[in-house]
């Protein structure tokens, strides 16, 4: 939807995304990015009107894992604060809504995920229908492979095209100092056919944070704020058997509601952990070659689960901050085979 109150992303920070961070607790992983966005804006914790985070207990392997991260935020005196058990992109959405109500004019949003303590392929299978599907332990790569196979069978892509997506992403990630897999990578063997190692995201740990601000406050805090012109998210049916896996109607609808099709975008940061999912999203969003897709390298180069969607919003905003984009689309996904999708349209003020 298109808001009648101006809200912008004014700062973004992310960790270096790493295969393992055994020496760091979640709090220790989050603290540097919190400090970094506060430093960028000159804000103190006490200047922030609302705080919202995204994470998942299932990655941490314990209940209430987010409570400890909150201790690190320094919630004293007490703060106005909330948490979504989702990717941080949805925490940003909750914070955006809060700013639209007028109850706050700045918000701190953070997200983190450590996949290294467990097997993320198995952990994500716990998202599935607990009575019929989860007991079979279908893992996230196997489900993505079903989707990739459907795409190939429908003639929407082929294995060489998927390999090209994978290669381009890692090549672009060479310019991203935070990426886990920068530079050329072999496409490798099949993990689950038709997906090869190169078509799959790295498993890793990471965190991200952004600061949002409204109107003139945003202009004070950032030379070129990334204005959120619209944002929407939609969910689809859970059972894969009742969805057309070659399409993403939820992404298309969210994009439409966010105003993405009103004018062309120059950049798209897509949360596509698998190369095949970029094919689905490009089609749903009508992106052609003129749009720069995932200049950061995307989730194929770094996929900190629960933060990767927020990173897309942050990367798109950062491109606007530094003048590399004027109108960018950011996308986040959740659930098996792109079940749930969020789209935001970000713009910089026009340059005279």
């Amino acid at each position, binding site marked *: *939807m298109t*808001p*009648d*109150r101006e809200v912008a992303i004014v700062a973004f920070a992310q960790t270096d995304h790493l295969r393992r961070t055994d020496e760091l*607790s979640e709090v220790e992983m989050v603290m540097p990015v919190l400090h970094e966005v506060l430093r960028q804006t000159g804000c103190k914790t006490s200047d922030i009107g609302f705080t919202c985070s995204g994470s*998942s*207990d*299932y990655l941490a*392997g*314990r*209940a*209430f894992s987010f*409570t*400890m991260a*909150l*201790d690190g935020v*320094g*919630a*004293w*005196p*007490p*703060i*106005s*604060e*909330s*948490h*979504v*058990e*989702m990717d941080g992109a*949805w925490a940003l959405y*909750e914070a955006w*809504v*809060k700013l*639209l*109500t*007028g*109850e706050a004019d700045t918000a701190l949003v953070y997200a983190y995920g450590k996949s290294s303590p467990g097997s993320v392929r198995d*952990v994500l299978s*716990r*998202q*599935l*229908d*607990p*009575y019929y599907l989860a007991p079979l332990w279908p893992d996230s790569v196997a489900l993505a492979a079903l989707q990739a196979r459907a795409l190939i069978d429908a003639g929407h892509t082929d294995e060489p095209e998927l390999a090209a997506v994978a290669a381009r992403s890692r090549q672009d990630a060479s310019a991203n100092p935070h990426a886990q897999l920068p530079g050329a990578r072999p496409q490798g063997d099949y993990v689950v056919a038709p997906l090869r190692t190169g078509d799959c995201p790295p498993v890793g740990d990471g965190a991200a944070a952004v600061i949002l601000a409204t109107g003139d406050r945003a202009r004070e805090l950032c030379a070129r704020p990334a204005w959120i012109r619209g944002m*929407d*998210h*939609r*969910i*689809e*049916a*859970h*059972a894969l058997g009742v969805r057309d896996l070659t399409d993403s*109607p*939820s992404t298309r*609808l969210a994009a439409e509601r966010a105003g993405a099709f009103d004018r062309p975008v120059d950049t798209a940061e897509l949360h596509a952990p698998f190369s095949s999912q970029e094919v689905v999203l490009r089609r749903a969003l009508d992106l052609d070659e003129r749009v720069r897709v995932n200049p950061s390298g995307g989730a194929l180069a770094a996929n900190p689960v629960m933060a990767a969607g927020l990173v897309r919003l942050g990367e798109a905003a950062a491109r606007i901050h530094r003048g590399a984009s004027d109108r960018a689309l950011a996308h986040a996904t*959740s*659930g*098996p085979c792109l*079940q*749930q999708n969020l789209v935001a349209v970000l713009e910089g003020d026009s340059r005279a």
Partner: protein
Amino acid sequence: MPKEPVAVVGIGQTKHVAARRDVSIAGLVREAALRALEDAELTWADIDAVVIGKAPDFFEGLMMPELYLADALGAVGKPMLRVHTAGSVGGSTALVAANLVSARVHRTVLTLAFEKQSESNAMWGLSLPVPFQQPLLAGAGGFFAPHVRAYMRRTGAPDTVGSLVAYKDRRNALKNPYAHLHEHDITLEKVQASPMLWDPIRYSETCPSSDGACAMILTDRAGAERSPRPPAWVHGGAMRSEPTLFAGKDFVSPQAGKDCAADVYRQAGITDPRREIDAVEMYVPFSWYEPMWLENLGFAEEGEGWKLTEAGVTELDGDLPVNPSGGVLSTNPIGASGMIRFAEAALQVRGRAGEHQVDGARRALGHAYGGGAQFFSMWLVGDRPPAV
């Protein structure tokens, strides 16, 4: 542009019980949602977005249940958000949904919270080992008992106050058809004779483990005008959080709770909560939290909360009824418990609380807390729209 006023036009709960073996998690939440739609005389097509909450995923062993529940809650093709703020989540979830309406992002929102504790074991869900961190060991009671003891020592409250609260809430629950515990033969002596679990908290002063769900339909001014039954209007809502453990924390009366209440009262124009609020649904999982929260929420001076309880002020027919529904002490599907407090407050001002209706309730407070008494969410609802 001022915020859009938010109205509660539909409320639905399941009959809360120890184990709903006859329904899946999807079946449970759908039951509450359908009852809320029926109350509002709306259909799934009228709902623009769904906001769902529950406590930790380990309580059912299902990660991010909103994904699996999208179909059951009519959310396919719609936005769906999942909130998790520990025990306060039911309240926070309602507030996130209310913000969607007040910001005019959506006009009519279904909000729902649930816990199906029989699917797993909440005690173990809370007891997963974490290296280098102090475990809570004996579940929530073990964590909160020392703070109750500190309250007793600080205020000189006689050790009978807790049993009075439990006796009252369990009797109120008999008037609420959805309450989990219906102890028809309850007496004060039975409460006082029940086993000591975490000194000074006795078995009968402790909440049960319940399966249950609660749903509400929130809508804007235009939606409220079409409502077939009187709506409840949101006059104020807030969340506050503070750290779990730090040297300056007052576990007896956390600052976050005081700040949250003050913010809600400011929004609602309440200057004397004791006189201006007609009914309170507060989150009392262990009986002693009633007198503690009476002080924390500004209904009594510090050290005086237990005197209100002892004098019968908080009884259903007292002048500040607390937990007319029977409260968390009688019904505790953890993730839903906060939303039940919010919903019961709304039922009171809609005049639709049935046998546990407080006569002439015009303003009611719904309260929830969670974590190590660190997360708070509250709303104040009234029978009239808020002044713009």
